[in-house]
């Protein structure tokens, strides 16, 4: 029988004599290399190369005929509009992320306290803003904020309030873009925190109860330490995404009024694509990089730590 089994596997290349196991090892890493090759090509060709190319582009003049060093960067730093963009980007990212984190935390806790059966239904509804592509849901917000037909203003008129210039005045417009981002992003925080809450073993709460902890103490000494990692990962990740946001501002205000709601991405788009100054646009986006890099490194550290904890 064993002969039959043997003859059933005619593998000429296997039968070839091999001097050492190193050859198998080498063969293994060759296969591994081939399997990862598409990924490596993708990362090198469509992420690393464009990034280096962006640095090169940012050092050309407007018509891309001459190398001008860091002139684009110094030019931007001297412009008041650019500093407005910096201010608005930071304001937008920080306030939106804080609000999203807070709302997400509250919702996750409320959901977690519900009986398992109802939880699913509520969770299903609360995640809807995250599921609709933002470029599409923002259209609905745009319509809700319409200067003459705003459904919000109609409702405000119903209680006797004055109409609000949602997208027309600087302060309100900044509020509106943040509001829409909070609307879109809170469910993500909620679902992340909910997953983290579910991973805290019930026994810890039971032990804390027996040790005499009240609700607040359990939150402070059990829930929070167990979730700290997820919270920091989520906040950092959201800072990156929010800081680099494009869709919402582009559709709602396109940077207006008077460039007061521009963030880096929309400003880069306006300068680089719409006004055709590619090098200057590239410089604008590159200004995002240092901050993003810092966030990214901390996110990675958080994830690695969590992976170790879970193992």
């Amino acid at each position: 029988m064993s002969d039959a089994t043997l003859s059933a596997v005619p593998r000429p290349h296997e039968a070839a004599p091999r001097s050492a196991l190193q050859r198998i090892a080498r063969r293994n890493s060759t296969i591994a290399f081939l399997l990862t090759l598409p990924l490596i090509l993708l990362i090198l060709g469509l992420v690393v190369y464009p990034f280096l190319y962006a640095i090169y582009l940012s050092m050309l003049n407007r018509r891309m005929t001459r190398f001008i060093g860091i002139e684009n960067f110094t030019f931007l730093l001297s412009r008041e509009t650019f500093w407005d963009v910096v201010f608005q980007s930071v304001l937008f990212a920080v306030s939106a992320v804080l609000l999203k984190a807070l709302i997400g935390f509250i919702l996750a806790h409320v959901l977690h306290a519900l009986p398992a059966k109802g939880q699913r239904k509520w969770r299903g509804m609360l995640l809807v803003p995250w599921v609709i592509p933002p470029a599409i849901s923002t259209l609905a917000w745009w319509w809700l904020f319409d200067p003459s037909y705003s459904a919000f203003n109609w409702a405000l008129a119903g209680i006797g309030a004055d109409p609000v210039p949602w997208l027309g005045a600087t302060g309100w417009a900044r509020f509106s873009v943040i509001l829409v981002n909070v609307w879109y992003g809170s469910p993500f925080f909620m679902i992340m925190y909910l997953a983290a809450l579910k991973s805290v073993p019930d026994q810890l709460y039971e032990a804390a109860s027996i040790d005499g902890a009240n609700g607040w103490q359990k939150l402070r000494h059990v829930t929070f330490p167990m979730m700290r990692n997820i919270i920091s990962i989520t906040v950092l990740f959201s800072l990156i995404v929010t800081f680099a946001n494009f869709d919402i501002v582009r559709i709602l205000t396109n940077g207006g009024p008077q460039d007061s709601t521009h963030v880096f991405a929309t400003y880069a788009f306006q300068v680089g694509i719409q006004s055709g100054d590619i090098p200057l646009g590239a410089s604008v986006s590159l200004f995002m990089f240092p901050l993003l890099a810092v966030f990214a490194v901390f996110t990675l550290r958080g994830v690695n730590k969590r992976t170790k904890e879970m193992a």
Partner: protein
Amino acid sequence: MSTTTAGGFVPAEMKHGSLRRERRWAMIGAYVALAVFVVFFMTPPFHMLVTSLKGSAEIADLSGNPWLVSAPTLQNYWELLTQGNYLLHFRNSIIVTTCTVLISMVVSTLAAFALARMKFWGSATLATGVFLTYLVPETLLFIPMFQIVGSLGLYNNMWAMVLIFPTLTVPFCTWIMIGYFASIPKELDEAALIDGAGHLQMLWKIFIPVALPGILAAMIFAFTVSWAAFIYPIAFLVSSDQMVLTVGIVSDLIRADTFQWGKIMAGALMAALPPLLVYAFLMDYYIAGLTAGATKG
């Protein structure tokens, strides 16, 4: 708000009488908070639906209630589906998304298998690199990409999207697939090895079927990202016949200052439908994919 936060933590060892009352109030608080947020979260989609069912006269009538429909009509939907380029945009979105999902899954599954199971020179660095790539936002790279796409002659060509969108999906898909693959017990590959499977047979016959939930989660992620992508289409696609939904709706239905809000809302609603349906039917996989980033599978 304070009552609702406390709602999650009803101390179990309170005195008998107050315990039930406390718990009831906490539950009521919880439901009130949920209701408030559900209203907040559902307002835009609801208003979208209401507007899409109105005729243009009703929309223009400032005296009417914008939150209600008095004469519902499917005219907006009908016009979208029979005239103009809406269906073309829908088709383009489907083509681009399907191709992106396929490419992403092939690239990320192969790479994740190698990274999860074969230790080779630089594999740890590559895995870290994949995660960092995932954190690179597309808004950082769209300007050089604009030049690259132009030099490839793919400007204003929807196939450029098929080339570029995988950069948005592959890193994360690879990352979560590494997690799913790594959770498969090592003895399973050893059993397959002894049973006579080669590397690709092991991947195809063991890893992919066993990690199917992870594959599904990654696929859903790739689908939603590619369906929702906005900055590349708006930067690279200018003629209507090449556009995908996220840019097509606005560009075709806004002529100068005339906003056809009824049709915009109808188009937006239909464009939001595929992700919503995927979400409704595959919610658990959707959420698994969402939360996998921080927990590695």
